[in-house]
């Protein structure tokens, strides 16, 4: 039993036979995935491939229809609340209230996550994303790029061991995307486990240790960054999604 526990601890995420139905549609069709602690995994896939659903299941927003999911050694079915404490989630939605200031939003999430010395931590995370000067502005007055930076700050408040990023660059301009990339590189140095879904093959290849392609609810390709260049990845993507079609 001890052996099993220590084995689970080596993995940040273990997914076995995960399926998820949305209505009559089977969105995830038996996903098997293991992510080591500190690993940066990038998931590509066309629209409707199941990327967002997979992230939502891992983030405990959705319950799996079947299969076994362990996050940081904790079972999704029994320990969802504790899992949420260990993950940070960034999506194209910012989870920020537009009528509250940036500070009020972060303060609210500090309370939700029981962040000790919230004020200091807020100062730290807004400095990471370069938003200190706009801390007391209402979120509704910030540009999309600034809101997304703030969303990253929100996700870092409680120092999560695992980051789940679902197409975080959607709607961002080039400058904001560069900032996001820098923030992710910084986080990577911090040895956080990161799972990123994106449509951008270039960005994914640049950031990820391991690259997966998801199509029609199944992982159809898996490879390491070292083994691929951009042309190879594009070829693999086109081949995998065509075969799946």
């Amino acid at each position, binding site marked *: 039993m001890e052996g099993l526990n220590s084995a689970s601890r080596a993995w940040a995420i273990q997914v076995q036979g995960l399926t998820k139905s949305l209505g009559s549609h089977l969105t995830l069709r038996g996903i098997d995935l293991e992510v080591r602690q500190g690993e940066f995994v990038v998931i590509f896939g066309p629209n409707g491939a199941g990327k967002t659903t997979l992230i939502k299941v891992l983030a405990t927003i959705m319950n799996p229809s079947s299969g076994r999911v362990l996050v940081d050694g904790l079972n999704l079915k029994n320990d969802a609340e504790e899992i949420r404490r260990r993950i940070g989630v960034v999506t194209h939605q910012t989870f*920020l209230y537009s*009528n509250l200031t940036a500070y009020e939003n972060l303060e609210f999430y500090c309370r939700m*996550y029981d962040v000790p010395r919230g004020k200091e931590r807020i100062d730290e995370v807004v400095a990471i994303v370069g938003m200190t000067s706009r801390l007391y502005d209402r979120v509704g007055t910030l540009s999309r790029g600034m809101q997304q930076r703030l969303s990253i700050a929100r996700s870092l408040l409680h120092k999560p061991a695992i980051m789940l990023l679902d197409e975080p660059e959607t709607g961002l301009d080039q400058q904001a995307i560069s900032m996001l990339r820098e923030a992710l590189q910084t986080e990577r140095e911090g040895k956080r486990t990161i799972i990123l879904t994106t449509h951008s093959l270039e960005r994914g290849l640049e950031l990820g240790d391991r690259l997966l392609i998801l199509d029609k609810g199944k992982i159809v390709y898996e490879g390491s960054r070292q083994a691929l260049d951009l042309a190879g990845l594009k070829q693999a993507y086109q081949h995998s999604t065509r075969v799946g079609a």
Partner: protein
Amino acid sequence: MRFWRKVIAIAWKDTLSEVRTKETVSSVLVFTLLVIVIFNFAFGTSQETMVLVAPGILWVTFAFAGVLSLNRSFILEKEEGCLEGLMVCPISRETIYVGKLLGSLLFMLVIEAIALPIFAFLFNLVLSLQLVVITVLATVGFVTVGTLFSALAVNTRAREMVLPILFLPIVVPVIICAVKASGLALSGEPWGSLSSWLQIIVAFDAIFLVVSFLVFAFVIEE
């Protein structure tokens, strides 16, 4: 204690957001006052008629004002994409439910605190402690059921229509009891004659609070 800290944080966040925009409070308040004024003109100045129709007018007004405000409770979270933000916080789903309930209750009570004196003034009625107690107890029942159905309706396409269709049939017992008890209170009856109606409202509040608390997680997750 941690549970209540988070509940209060959610209710505070909703209140602060509403104080900033005054979107819902202004529309609900205008609706409430308009209905009271229109009915006041419709039924003339006869005191006997007023005592007879006032309870019905009051609770029709509060019921529809409740639908308007409860509709916004989860729709705003959904529109801002923040519902999932709450769902990834390390809190139980029940914490979200009680937090939203508390925010909506506070909101409804503020509307009623403004509307009741105006109602009493226009209908030439005495605003008694009995009427205040009836209002608070019935509002708890309203908001308890309304918060649950608001969460249910938010994932449907015609969300603004779904809430009243689901909510009003369920709260009919509370509305009937509140109308009856208010009628007795406005007629100057003692507490004893109201007690059976109040007991039904309290029982409704307790039952639906427990049921809503237990089923909320299933409602919000799928």
